[in-house]
C-alpha cells in the first residue's frame, strides 16, 4: 500500500479547507501556506510508482482470497479483472507532470503571499483546491472521478478570477460559469452513455471491453459519447470555440492566478486528452478531429494575439495558441508524437507561468496593463526585463531552451507521419509568436517612456525574481538535456500509441 499517492490530493484539500476558516489570521495562513506549498512538489518526488485502490478493493484476479466461493458467473468472466474501486495510477509520466504543476503552484502561492501586505486565506484556499483537483485529474483512472474534479477545478478557477480586483472580473466569471453549466451536463451525459454501453466508469476496463469485443466498437452510442466528451474537453481547456472566454479568464486574474490557471488548462488538456485517446483511438476521425481543432486553436490564438493592446490578454491568447501544439502531438497518435506533445505540455506550463509572472512585475510597478500607455520600463526593472526576454525566446522555441526541443520533436513526428504541412504551419506560427512577443517587449520596455506614466517606487519582491530564475533554470535544464523529461514520458506514450 502506497499511502503517498492519495496524500498528494488529500493534503492540499484538507489544508485548503483549514485556510478558508483561518481567513483573518495572517501569520497562521502564511505559515500553513508555505508548508503546504512546499509539500506539493516534494510528495510526488519521493513517492514510489504504484496504483491506489480506494477502499482497498483490488480486482478479484489480484486478490484470490475474496474470490474463493464466488460463482463461476463472476470469476470466469471479465468481471474477474474489472476494477471495483476508484483507481489512481501513479506512473512516471504522472510523476513529472505533477512535480511540474506543484512547482508552478509553489511559486504562485509564495509570490501571492509576499506581493500583498496581508496574506489572504481565501486566495490560498482557491489555489490549493484547484491544484489538488488537477492533480487528481492527472492521477485518476476513473472517468466519473475525473468529472467531479473537473467541476471542482472549474469552480476554483472562477474563484481565482473573482478574488482578483481586476475590472469586469465578475462579468467574465459569470459568463464562464454559464458556459460551464451547459458544457458539464453534456460531459456528464457523455460519461453516462459510456457507462450505459460498457457498464463501467474505469477507463482501463472500458478500453478492455471495447478491445475484446464485449461491446460493439462501432456502436453509434459510443460515437455520441465521444463527441460529448470532446465537447467537455474543449470547454475545460479553452480550445475554440471557447478560446475567447478562456483567454478573458486568464487576463482577469492576478498574474500569479493567471500563471496557475494556464497550468490548470494545460494539465487538464493532457489528462482528458489522454483518456479520449485511450478509449476512442480506434475511431480514425478522432485523431483527425484532434489535429483539426488544434490547428484552429493555434491559428486563431496566435493571430488574435497580434491585435491585442492589453499585454495580459496578449499572453493569454498566446497560451491558448500554444495548447494547439500539444493537441497536434496527441492527435498524431504515434509514440514519438505523443511523447513530443506531453513534453510540450510540460514546457508550455512552465514557460507561460514564467511569462505571466514576468509581466506581472509591470503590473506591480505601474498598475497598468494597456500597452499603449506603457514604455521605458527597461530602466526601472532591468533584471526582470532580461528574464522576460529570455522567457519570450523560450516560448518561441529558440535554442537552447526547452520549447525548442519539444517543437523540434513535434516537427519530426509530423514529418514521420507523412504530414509535412503541419510541420510548416507549426514553424510559421512559431515565427509569428516570436514577432508578437517582440512587439510587446519593445512597446513595454524599449520605446521612450510616455510622460503621464506613473511608476510606483516599490522594489519588486525578491521571491518574484527567485521564482523567475527557478523557471529559467528548469527551462535550460530541459532544453539542454531533453532526455531527462522524455524518459519519464515515453512509457505513457508507448502505452497509448
Amino acid at each position, binding site marked *: 500500500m502506497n499511502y503517498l499517492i492519495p496524500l498528494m490530493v488529500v493534503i492540499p484539500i484538507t489544508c485548503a479547507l483549514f485556510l478558508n476558516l483561518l481567513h483573518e489570521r495572517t501569520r497562521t495562513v502564511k505559515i500553513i501556506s508555505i508548508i503546504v506549498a512546499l509539500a506539493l512538489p516534494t510528495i510526488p518526488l519521493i513517492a514510489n510508482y504504484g496504483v491506489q485502490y480506494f477502499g482497498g478493493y483490488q480486482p478479484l484476479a489480484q486478490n484470490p482470497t475474496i474470490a474463493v466461493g464466488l460463482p463461476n458467473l463472476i470469476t470466469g468472466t471479465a468481471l474477474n479483472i474489472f476494477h471495483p474501486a476508484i483507481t489512481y495510477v501513479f506512473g512516471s509520466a504522472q510523476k513529472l507532470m505533477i512535480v511540474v504543476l506543484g512547482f508552478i503552484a509553489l511559486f504562485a502561492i509564495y509570490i501571492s503571499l509576499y506581493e500583498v501586505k496581508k496574506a489572504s486565506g481565501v486566495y490560498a484556499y482557491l489555489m490549493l483546491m484547484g491544484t489538488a483537483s488537477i492533480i487528481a485529474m492527472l492521477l485518476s483512472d476513473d472517468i466519473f472521478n475525473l468529472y467531479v474534479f473537473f467541476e471542482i477545478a472549474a469552480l476554483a478557477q472562477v474563484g481565482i478570477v473573482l478574488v482578483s480586483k481586476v475590472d469586469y472580473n465578475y462579468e467574465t466569471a459569470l459568463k464562464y460559469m454559464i458556459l460551464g453549466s451547459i458544457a458539464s451536463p453534456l460531459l456528464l451525459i457523455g460519461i453516462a452513455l459510456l*457507462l450505459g454501453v460498457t457498464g463501467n466508469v474505469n477507463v482501463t476496463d472500458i478500453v478492455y471491453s471495447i478491445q475484446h469485443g464485449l461491446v460493439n466498437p462501432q456502436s453509434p452510442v459510443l460515437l455520441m459519447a465521444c463527441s460529448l466528451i470532446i465537447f467537455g474537453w474543449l470547454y475545460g481547456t479553452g480550445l475554440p470555440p471557447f478560446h475567447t472566454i478562456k483567454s478573458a479568464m486568464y487576463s482577469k486574474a492576478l498574474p500569479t492566478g493567471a500563471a496557475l490557471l494556464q497550468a490548470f488548462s494545460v494539465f487538464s488538456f493532457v489528462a482528458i486528452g489522454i483518456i479520449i485517446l485511450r478509449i476512442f483511438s480506434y475511431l480514425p476521425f478522432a485523431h483527425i478531429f484532434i489535429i483539426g481543432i488544434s490547428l484552429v486553436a493555434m491559428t486563431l490564438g496566435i493571430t488574435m494575439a497580434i491585435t491585442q493592446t492589453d499585454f495580459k490578454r496578449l499572453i493569454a491568447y498566446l497560451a491558448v495558441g500554444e495548447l494547439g501544439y500539444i493537441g497536434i502531438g496527441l492527435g498524431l497518435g504515434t509514440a514519438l508524437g505523443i511523447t513530443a506533445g506531453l513534453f510540450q505540455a510540460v514546457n508550455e506550463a512552465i514557460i507561460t507561468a514564467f511569462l505571466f509572472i514576468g509581466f506581472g512585475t509591470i503590473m506591480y510597478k505601474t498598475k497598468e496593463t494597456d500597452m499603449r500607455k506603457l514604455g521605458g520600463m527597461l530602466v526601472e526593472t532591468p533584471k526582470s526585463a532580461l528574464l522576460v526576454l529570455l522567457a519570450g525566446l523560450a516560448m518561441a522555441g529558440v535554442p537552447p531552451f526547452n520549447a525548442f526541443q519539444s517543437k523540434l520533436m513535434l516537427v519530426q513526428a509530423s514529418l514521420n507521419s507523412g504530414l509535412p504541412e503541419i510541420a510548416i504551419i507549426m514553424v510559421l506560427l512559431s515565427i509569428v509568436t516570436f514577432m508578437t512577443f517582440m512587439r510587446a517587449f519593445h512597446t513595454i520596455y524599449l520605446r521612450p517612456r510616455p510622460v503621464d506614466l506613473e511608476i510606483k517606487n516599490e522594489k519588486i519582491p525578491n521571491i518574484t525574481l527567485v521564482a523567475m530564475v527557478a523557471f529559467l533554470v528548469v527551462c535550460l535544464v530541459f532544453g539542454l538535456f531533453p532526455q531527462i523529461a522524455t524518459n519519464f514520458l515515453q512509457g505513457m506514450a508507448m502505452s497509448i500509441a
Partner: protein
Amino acid sequence: MIMDTQLASLLTAGALMVIGIFGTLFLDNLIKKVISLAFIGDGANLFLIAMGYKVGGIVYIFLPGMSMSNFSQNASYPLPFALVLTSIVIGASTMAVMLGIIILLNKKYGSLSASKILGE
C-alpha cells in the same frame, strides 16, 4: 401503456434539457438563465437515473431475508445512482456561486438584464 417507464423518463430528461437550453439562450433575465441552467443539470441527472433503472426490477438494497440469486437477477444497477448523488450536490453549489455573482452584479449595474451586463 404506449411506452415503458424507462423510455418515458429518458424523453422527460431530453425535454428538460431542451427547455433548459432554450431558456439559457433566449431569456434575458439572469436569474431565469440560472434557473434554466439548473434544469439542464436536472435533465442530465434524470438521464443517468433512467439508465440504471430496470423494468420490473427491485431496489438495489439487500435486505435480510432476500435470496441472493433473486436479488442479483432483479436489482437495478446502482452505479449511476451513486454518481447522481455527487452530481446533484455539485449542481447546487454551482448555482449558489452564480447567484452570489449575480447579486454583486446587480449592485453594480442596477439591472439583471444579460444583454446589459454581459454584452460589453
